[in-house]
């Protein structure tokens, strides 16, 4: 694998052709001037030469474009930093065994959608017996005691319940992201647990389709799960974070957000 190239370009149909396609709308009436404007934007995005392969007007003052072209930017794989899973993926029986030998009691998990978010899809997919992506939910795990508080739980309710149930872990799902509600709600929750319970607070885990998994520290939680997370990954993380060795504890989150971003924001 040593001769794998570290610098790559987008692939259309030939190595190194750099081909990308993109679509966007400009507040310009359709016509040659609009197409010229689209080409100018494409060039500034690094797509050169670019082809406006399609355009049509939307209403009186807007034009929609589909653009193909070769992007001049390079991607340096050596400069790409992503979070690798820092814990082993366990089967349900391995999770049960680890909890039983590690804790000698059930591991208590509390789940909720907080704030005004009424979308229980995420938390249900992880917790419900039914599960997600062919994996059974956490309710299926014999050694996990799971309570799903449902939607629109207030932060004080969640903190009180976590205390009453002596929750080991609190899972919060956030789907609504308008105006960064998911980030705001998460920070509020983390702050409330810190204030109410200090070091005794449960493990805090948030998840949702628009979270960046690298944001845990910034949000004040222990772990962030993004789109496509399965119940098994969550269960495995719980074991890694909450039961003593032999399972190694998770390594601290990397805070690097650097990627080979040459495209201007």
């Amino acid at each position, binding site marked *: 694998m040593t001769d794998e190239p570290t610098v790559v370009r987008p692939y259309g149909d030939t190595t190194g052709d750099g081909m990308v396609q993109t679509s*966007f*709308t400009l507040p310009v009436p359709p016509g040659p001037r609009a197409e010229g404007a689209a080409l100018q934007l494409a060039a500034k995005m690094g797509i050169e030469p670019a082809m406006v392969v399609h355009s049509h007007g939307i209403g009186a003052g807007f034009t929609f474009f589909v653009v193909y072209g070769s992007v001049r930017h390079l991607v340096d794989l050596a400069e790409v930093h992503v979070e690798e899973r820092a814990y082993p993926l366990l089967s349900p029986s391995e999770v049960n065994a680890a909890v039983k030998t590690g804790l000698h009691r059930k591991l208590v998990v509390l789940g909720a959608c907080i704030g*005004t*978010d009424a979308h*229980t899809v995420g938390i249900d997919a992880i917790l419900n017996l039914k599960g997600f992506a062919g994996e059974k939910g956490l309710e299926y795990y014999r050694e996990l005691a799971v309570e799903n508080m*449902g939607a629109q739980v207030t932060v004080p309710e969640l903190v009180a319940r976590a205390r009453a149930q002596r929750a080991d872990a609190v899972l919060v799902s956030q789907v609504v992201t*308008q*105006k960064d509600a998911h980030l705001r709600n998460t920070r509020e929750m983390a702050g409330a647990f810190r204030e109410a319970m200090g070091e005794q607070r449960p493990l805090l885990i948030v998840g949702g389709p628009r979270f960046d998994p690298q944001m845990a520290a910034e949000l004040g939680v222990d772990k962030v799960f993004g789109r496509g997370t399965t119940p098994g990954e969550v269960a495995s993380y719980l074991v890694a974070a909450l039961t003593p060795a032999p399972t190694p504890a998770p390594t601290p989150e990397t805070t690097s957000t650097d990627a080979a971003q040459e495209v201007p924001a």
Partner: protein
Amino acid sequence: MVSTRLDLDPRLTVTARELAARAAQPVIDLATRHTTVSVERAVLRLAGLAGTDPVAGEGDIPWVNRVVDTVREQVGLEHGVALPVWHAITSGAAHDLDDVAEQVGAGTARFTVPEGTAAEQARAAARAASARGIARIDANRARRDELVALHGDPPRRPWIYLIVATGDIYEDIPQAQAAARAGADVIAVIRSTGQSLLDYVPEGATRTGYAGTYATGENFRLMRAALDDVSAELGRYVRLTNYASGLCMPEIAVLAGQERLDMMLNDAMYGILFRDINPVRTFVDQRFSRMVHARAGIIINTGEDNYLTTADAVDEAHTVTVSQLLNERFAHEAGLADWQIGLGHAFEIQPDLPESFRLELAHAMLARSLFPDAPLKWMPPTKHMTGDVFRGYLLDGFFNLAGLLTDQSILLVGMMTEAVVTPWLSDRDLALRNVRYVLDAAGGLSEDFSPPPGGFIDRRAHTVLTEAVTLLERIVQDGLLESIAAGTFGITKRPADRGKGLDGVARIAADHYNPALDVLTEKADD
């Protein structure tokens, strides 16, 4: 025009409706024995009380809340607010309703529950005020009929239903007009997240909604006026939809009638299951709100699509049918005619499942055949929209085709960017192009499409209907409230003595008087 129908086993359909009626009856009885703060506030809104108390809170508490809360503190809610409030007027303690509100604001109001002749006078005055309020709603209904006659209905079914949601009514208006020009027949203004759980209706034109725009009387008026303009321009009456759900269903229903909205989201159980609103509160509120909608000539839209976002669309298909049957029963009881009952269902089967499209057709045809005269609302995929916008666009195309093949009445336009962003201008445009392509390319296809008896679609529809009957039998046996408490619908368990808004429910006393119900039921018997 030939319509696609399955020949459903009449024993099953008759049994299903009988069971739905039996399941609903105890809840209807319960609803008639209770009132709620929102029902009582609706009575005051109907009589014309509007505005907010400039002094209470941050100046955003409506007068109807202030008056109802004060009446409740002084004499309780069990008599209804009409008796004490109009007694204050007929006894000369206040000139009119606004004066009552002012006295409440000043802290000088002293409410008593009248008896004998004084009670008769208060009832008569309250009834006259309610009748004037209903007359305004009647006039709006007549005006709608005139405008539909003048501009015309959409040229074809299904009606194309598009959502606008910026949070700012003044941004919504040009977007809604643009959507109408691009082909939308129905504009829905999504509400601000969390409005369901506000125990008051915000006031005035609003610009600060969150993932949606607040439902207020003034926002309703502004949007309806804007759509009247665009209807005249297009020569097609463009309908307006909002949401009578949450803690203020009855009041929002009144506002919708006052401002000539055309359709309203209104589900009998949605608030209970998805918003954790107390079941009794919900059933009382939905009954009153539906009586107002019935009178206003509004088409309700029920929320069965929601079940399928939390449960499996194949395994739980029968819960949709059960909910449709219950919604139909509650709607009929509240006086809604079949043409007003827009029962919902959705295209939410896992697309990787073999024969998923045939299963969708079977479920959609079951709804069409079981409710032949209902303006069914067909909702697009959301659960399996993954962010792969290309696949999403294809899936929406199949959704559009299924809607057309199975003769759906109202088609909510699906967005390929569902679950990614709130729709962009181009997303809406592409989505409408998708719909137009399918309608233009295959508009008459339902004429050629009749699944054979005993075939896959016919068998699947009967399986779902049979499962629905079995579930209804269980609900009749256990009780609807008990079934909701036990988690029969979706996975959520909602006991009747819990949930939000329970403190706003009161069992009515023998002398309870609701003048709006009085006027509404009298006319309904005509």
